[in-house]
């Protein structure tokens, strides 16, 4: 009962603090503080509810238990991370996005392909491509190569559609201006269209970061060596060792956020000129 009360009181205080902070003029500090308080209060309430209701750790372990598991099994988690995120997801991401980027330029060069391939690409991008995972595992074996293959397929079409759209982002005036300068196709591409396409390209890259991790993890459900995040999650769930599963989820969350954040930082550096990057208000 005490734990529940403590959680309730903490929630009230945190919410009041957030209301008070949100009413103040928005600055960088409040913009960071408000979501942080919200996040912390969720974790505290979670801990209090688990202890207060005495919930079985098989169902929902408390954050403190997860933290202990995380700290004690760092070597395992690291091995899983290297196997899934670095070998599987990252290599697939690089290959898939690179291939899609080159294909997009080819499509852009030939209008016929554009009219034919783009609708098909749009269609394929909406399909449950994750279902290709068992086939890729069959073709490329159990190790990370098959995971990378799944990731390549998953990121290819979103990246392709975004890049092609970006390459068309310049308007006629700008392209005509390049023509009056007697610029060749490669020159127009390098100096005008690729820079203009960058916001779209990064949109595709950002969408692909989460897809890559999801693809690599889910592909491991169809067979994997005895390490990897997907393997660990499915086996530990089977043993009802949920604290380990949650530790793995924390790793996935951290990896996903870092990956996304890295691409977002890169985007900021490359497309600093775009209106969406300017400081608003």
């Amino acid at each position, binding site marked *: 009962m005490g734990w529940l009360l403590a959680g309730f009181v903490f929630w009230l205080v945190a919410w009041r603090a957030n209301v008070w902070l949100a009413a103040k003029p928005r600055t960088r500090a409040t913009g960071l503080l408000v979501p942080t308080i919200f996040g912390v209060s969720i974790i505290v309430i979670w801990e209090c509810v688990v202890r207060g209701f005495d919930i079985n750790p098989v169902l*929902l372990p408390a954050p403190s238990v997860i933290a202990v598991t995380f700290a004690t099994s760092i070597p395992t988690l690291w091995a899983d991370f290297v196997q899934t995120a670095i070998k599987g997801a990252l290599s697939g991401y690089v290959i898939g996005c690179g291939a899609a980027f080159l294909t997009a330029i080819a499509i852009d060069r030939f209008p016929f392909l554009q009219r*034919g391939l783009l609708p098909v690409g749009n269609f394929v991008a909406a399909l449950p491509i994750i*279902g290709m995972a068992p086939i890729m595992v069959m073709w490329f074996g159990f190790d990370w190569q098959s995971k990378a293959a799944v990731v390549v397929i998953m990121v290819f079409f979103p990246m392709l559609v975004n890049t092609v759209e970006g390459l068309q982002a310049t308007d006629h005036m700008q392209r005509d201006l390049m023509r009056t300068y007697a610029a060749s196709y490669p020159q127009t591409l390098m100096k005008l269209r690729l820079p203009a396409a960058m916001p779209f390209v990064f949109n595709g890259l950002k969408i692909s970061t989460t897809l890559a991790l999801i693809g690599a993890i*889910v592909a491991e459900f169809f067979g994997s060596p005895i390490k990897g995040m997907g393997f660990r999650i499915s086996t530990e769930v089977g043993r009802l060792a949920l604290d380990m599963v949650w530790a793995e989820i924390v790793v*996935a969350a951290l990896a996903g956020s870092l990956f996304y954040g890295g691409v977002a930082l890169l985007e900021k550096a490359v497309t600093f000129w775009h209106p969406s990057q300017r400081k608003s208000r």
Partner: protein
Amino acid sequence: MRNLFPILTVVAAIFALWYAGSVVLNAPWAYDKAERAGVELTTKDLFADTMSQKKPKLPPPHQVGQEIWKTTGAMVAKGRAFSKRSLIYHSWITLSATLLGFALGTGFGILLSVGIVYNRTMDMSVMPWVIASQTIPILAIAPMIIVVLNAVGISGLLPKAVISMYLSFFPVVVGMVKGLRSPDHMQVDQMKTWNATKGQEFWKLRLPSSMPFLFPSLKVAMAASLVGAIVGELPTGAVAGLGARLLGGSYYGQTIQIWSALITAAVLAAALVGIIGLIQKVVLKRMGMA
């Protein structure tokens, strides 16, 4: 219509590549068989064999087509459309989880976006976490959700729908927040000069002007919730649903079964997204936006 010829060309090229691929990938097994039987394989025999293997590495399109027909149309003809061996039955299992998850996700997403637009505290505290929630691979949690809910005694449709919901609420939130904020200052001020209440402002200005943003989000959400439902079927070793067909096919090396489940899922996704597209056309036309 101008686009029809290029699209058909690309589709034809995909089929040609598919056939060529299945010849190349299935050839080693055909050679292997011929060697063990001690016969020389002519090109014609090789071609015939790669087109009709029992467990090919890449089944050619017509084999997949036959399998799909055998498990859908032929089943209907025999009056056993909902037998456990029929893809219609498995599609229905997946579809019901998808639709429930989509409905829940859309409802939750719209409620959340209304809260975010009207409550500054919620905007500042919840919105960053909504975005952060998508940078973690939610599908990784799928097996845990299934097993945990199973342990509490909830199984079947709901756990899968929960995963679908989680995947589909995000696009709806993002689209709706953008949409509900799309009326510009002039329009909001106009409402004020008419002495409109908050409710009137919402129902007569903000909600209608969010519609063009809502529908594209719904399309994404629908595709995402189908993925959620399929992945939700993997971890429990479920016996029914398209995901279960994929998993079963991968256990027993039944490639034709995997491909037919895959194609069915693709058709399902295309149909669902297409239906939303149709509704979008009708609604936006009646609202005078398209």
